[in-house]
């Protein structure tokens, strides 16, 4: 059975989806079979990074939650992105998007859904797609999806920016993850300006939370220019950002 990795941050705008997509693709380049679930049902977005428009997806996670299809029917094989960037196609990557339809999002807010079904879905994806890793891109803050994802995860990646609000919120999430006995937890500092001393920041974060920092990702102009139109580490495999992503992947594999 494969491993579940949740990528989370307490606050929005930290770069969760970008980090998830880049870690996922880096794992796939190494030959692993990777699934990425967008459980950010209230504000989905990771599909954009994989070049999918809302009308491209026949089914979304919402359809599975309403019993309209199997969750494996929602999975889109986006492995072609690896070969289109001249990467080896040893591994595979699947995306399980959430719906961008207003009516689907509001239905979740109005009616709720069976949380057990979501949990069953994670397992069905691991088995049905024979995944080595299932990555969960979560909604920021704490809600049912987040708490479920953290609870069932083998590893939790917490993203924070060098920002006081992020620091305080991360303390809450670290506390929750400890209460939920997450087997492995790492922090990733993202959008770190070049003027920061990365080693010093890493030490400061590690001493504050007593959690290892798997990587310090620099803020980079190219990321803004890309504007979620591609997976950064595929487009710029030798960029310092991509090198840090690879070291985060190695940290998760260790």
């Amino acid at each position, binding site marked *: 059975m494969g491993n579940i990795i949740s990528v989370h941050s307490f606050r929005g705008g930290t770069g969760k989806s970008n980090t998830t997509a880049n870690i996922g693709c880096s794992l796939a380049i190494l030959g692993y079979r990777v699934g990425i679930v967008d459980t950010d049902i209230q504000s989905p977005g990771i599909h954009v990074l994989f070049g999918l428009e809302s009308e491209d997806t026949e089914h979304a996670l919402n359809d599975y939650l309403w019993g309209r299809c199997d969750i494996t029917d929602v999975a889109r094989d986006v492995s072609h992105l690896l070969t289109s960037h001249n990467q080896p196609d040893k591994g595979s990557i699947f995306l399980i998007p959430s719906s961008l339809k*207003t*009516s689907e999002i*509001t*239905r*979740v*807010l*109005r*009616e*709720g*859904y*069976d*949380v*057990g079904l979501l*949990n069953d879905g994670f*397992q069905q994806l691991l088995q049905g797609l024979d995944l080595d890793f299932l990555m969960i891109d979560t909604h920021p803050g*704490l*809600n*049912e*999806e987040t*708490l*479920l994802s953290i*609870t*069932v*995860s*083998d590893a939790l990646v917490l993203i924070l920016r060098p920002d006081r609000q992020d620091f305080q919120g991360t303390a809450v999430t670290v506390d*929750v993850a400890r*209460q*939920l*006995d997450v*087997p492995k937890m790492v922090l990733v500092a993202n959008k770190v300006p070049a003027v920061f001393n990365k080693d010093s920041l890493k030490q400061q974060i590690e001493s504050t939370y007593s959690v290892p920092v798997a990587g310090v990702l620099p803020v980079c102009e190219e990321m803004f220019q890309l504007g979620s139109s591609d997976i950064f580490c595929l487009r710029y495999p030798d960029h310092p950002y991509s090198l840090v992503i690879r070291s985060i992947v190695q940290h998760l594999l260790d």
Partner: protein
Amino acid sequence: MSDSQDLSNGSTQGVGLNPADLLMLPDAQRTILTMMMRRQSALTLTEIAEQLNAPSEEVAPVMAELLQLGYVTTENDTYQVKLGRRTPRIQSKRQSPRVAAVWDKLG
């Protein structure tokens, strides 16, 4: 092993476990539930005790509590976590007609 049983008011008690309930539970109950959720498969009392490195006699009363709360179900001597529904964010009964009309328009 069992802490005092602190049943959270207003929880999904009896209709399955809401993940948010986990944070309100005594340590002994939460430890069992998180382990079972991560393992996924149905487990016997002996298997649960082995996973926790605890004597079965200590685990049994906690399982009875979880069963009573509706957070686990039992079948053929095995236990499985029963998850409930995600809490709706919009309580239609409390909505003004104007707000309801907005949501109807959206959905």
